[in-house]
């Protein structure tokens, strides 16, 4: 990293007190995001990817949650800001869009009103100017006849159109960072591609840095500059898109890549899956959290591996295996059909 990053998360830990004990949802995550960059955060449900970014926005107001660590945005620690100060950043500096566009908009207000509300909260402009801005934004996100649609209610839009409205709303104050929490999970595949294309286009137009949270490697494959893979509340591998797709270091990443149906390879008889379930966040194992599901486990795995730059060039991974050994092993994990064919 040359300049100071736009957003820097340092050793963020989030835990929730529950009746059964303390759930460590995020166990020490560090991230950086530079201006205009797109960071993909990949992981399965419960891996802590959403909780991490919700904590950055300070949107978790569960009285049972406790937070540790620092979140530096333009040199200010967001975790230490007062409610009023963080409100000034939400929506203006850092905006967020959510998974389910069907429920993310308030059903009783016109979409234009909802966009104007945000604009007028952060900027001193007249109602008419805010309304004009709303129409402009709706046009930018590709809603036809935005001048009329601005007065419609959310239930008069389809899912894809609602997500476009959400994007328009998120970009209404030209934020530095857009956090997209599984923006396409609830949409049809054809609409998914449109929404991702839209995010890419607007990101370039507005110069916004994007954090894209997803469980779908396909989504980050053509959007993210860098990718962080999360497992059981920690980042287990992080690198450029190239690093992750062409030189993955962690057996969990291999598993994820291996479970993608690919058109450019012989069709496997059965799509590979990672055996087992992620560990309970109540009782995380002492050693590597992925150990129980990993096919390449050995003695050292009883100690927790640190996230280290073993490959070089900022490609971090948390696995004890030796690099040379990994490159050999992973071929069999990512492409099991190759073994099947050989036998």
């Amino acid at each position, binding site marked *: 990293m040359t300049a100071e990053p736009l957003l820097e998360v340092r050793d963020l830990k989030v835990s929730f007190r529950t009746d059964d004990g303390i759930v460590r949802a995020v166990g020490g995550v560090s991230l950086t995001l530079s201006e205009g960059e797109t960071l993909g955060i990949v992981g399965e449900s419960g891996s802590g990817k959403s909780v991490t970014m919700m904590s950055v926005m300070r949107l978790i107001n569960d009285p049972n949650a406790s937070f540790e660590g620092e979140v530096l945005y333009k040199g200010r620690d967001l975790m230490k800001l007062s409610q009023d100060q963080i409100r000034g950043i939400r929506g203006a500096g850092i905006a967020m869009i959510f998974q*389910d566009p069907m429920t993310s908009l308030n059903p009783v207000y016109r979409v234009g009103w909802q966009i104007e509300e945000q604009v007028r909260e952060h900027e001193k402009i007249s109602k008419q100017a805010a309304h004009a801005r709303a129409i402009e934004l709706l046009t930018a996100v590709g809603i036809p006849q935005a001048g009329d649609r601005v007065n419609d209610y959310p239930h008069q839009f389809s899912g894809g159109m609602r997500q476009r409205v959400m994007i328009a709303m998120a970009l209404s104050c030209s934020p530095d960072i857009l956090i997209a929490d599984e923006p396409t999970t609830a949409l049809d595949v054809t609409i998914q591609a449109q929404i991702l294309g839209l995010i890419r286009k607007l990101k370039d137009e507005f110069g916004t840095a994007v954090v894209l949270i997803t469980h779908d490697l396909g989504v980050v494959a053509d959007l993210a500059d860098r990718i962080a893979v999360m497992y059981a509340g920690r980042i287990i591998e992080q690198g450029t898109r190239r690093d992750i797709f062409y030189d993955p270091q962690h057996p969990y990443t291999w598993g994820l890549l291996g479970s993608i149906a690919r058109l450019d390879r012989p069709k496997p008889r059965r799509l590979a899956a990672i055996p087992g379930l992620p560990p309970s966040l109540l009782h995380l194992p002492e050693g590597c959290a992925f150990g129980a599901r990993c096919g390449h486990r050995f003695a050292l795995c009883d100690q927790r591996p640190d996230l280290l730059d073993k490959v070089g060039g900022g490609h971090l991974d948390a696995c004890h295996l030796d690099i040379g050994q990994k490159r050999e092993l992973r071929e069999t994990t990512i492409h099991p059909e190759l073994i099947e064919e050989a036998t």
Partner: protein
Amino acid sequence: MMKKIFITRDLVSYSNQGVRVVQEVFAATPATLSLVFGAAVLWVVMAIAVGIAAALLRGTVFDPLLMVVALVGVSAPVFWVGQIANLLSQGTLHSTFLFSWVPPLGYTPFTQSPELWFKGLVIPWITLSLLYIGFYGRVLRANILEVQNEDYVRTARAKGISERRVLLRHSLRTSMITFVSLFGLDFAALVAGGALLTEVVFGIHGVGYLTWQALENLDLPTIMATTIYGAFFIVLVNAIVDIGYAWLDPRIRPT
């Protein structure tokens, strides 16, 4: 009999010879409407305040405390609260500065003396609305807390708007839907004669009081007239509530 109620309007009471019941019901209506409207304003305002306060103070001791007070309000019978209020304001404490302003029991028409009308109704209003403040406050609190977890409330927070605005503009608006439907039912029932106990205790000669007298005397024509009057208001208020729904929730507006 229907003809005598609706067309010739000359149905005569069995027990009070010569009294025309339709006119008698009309004459009693202003008293009931005054009582119920005033109580309704009081209970809507107070219940919203209680509901919001309890939802905001969740996690502190004040939330359960408020809810217990509300439960007491729901549980206390109107006739008992009314009698105690009378006992204090008309009897033991009437001579003290606290209640010296209270006029004797009964209803003074607004047109006769607005001041007496108001003074005479203050205690009945409070008595009648207690039950509803408690009940509606509890319902509203539960609804607000439920809506607070909705995705669109999270979106509203992510927009950077103040907690206060999130609560008043986003959570409360959708929470009011249940509130309005309950209000329609209760308000209609009260206007239709459901405020009977309050009217009797405070000597307000409204429709409830009339119904009570008619029932005591088995005065069938009066019972008929008050019943039809009640049915009319229940239908009317429900129609108004339906319009209220459409105002609150655009999803049910016709397109």
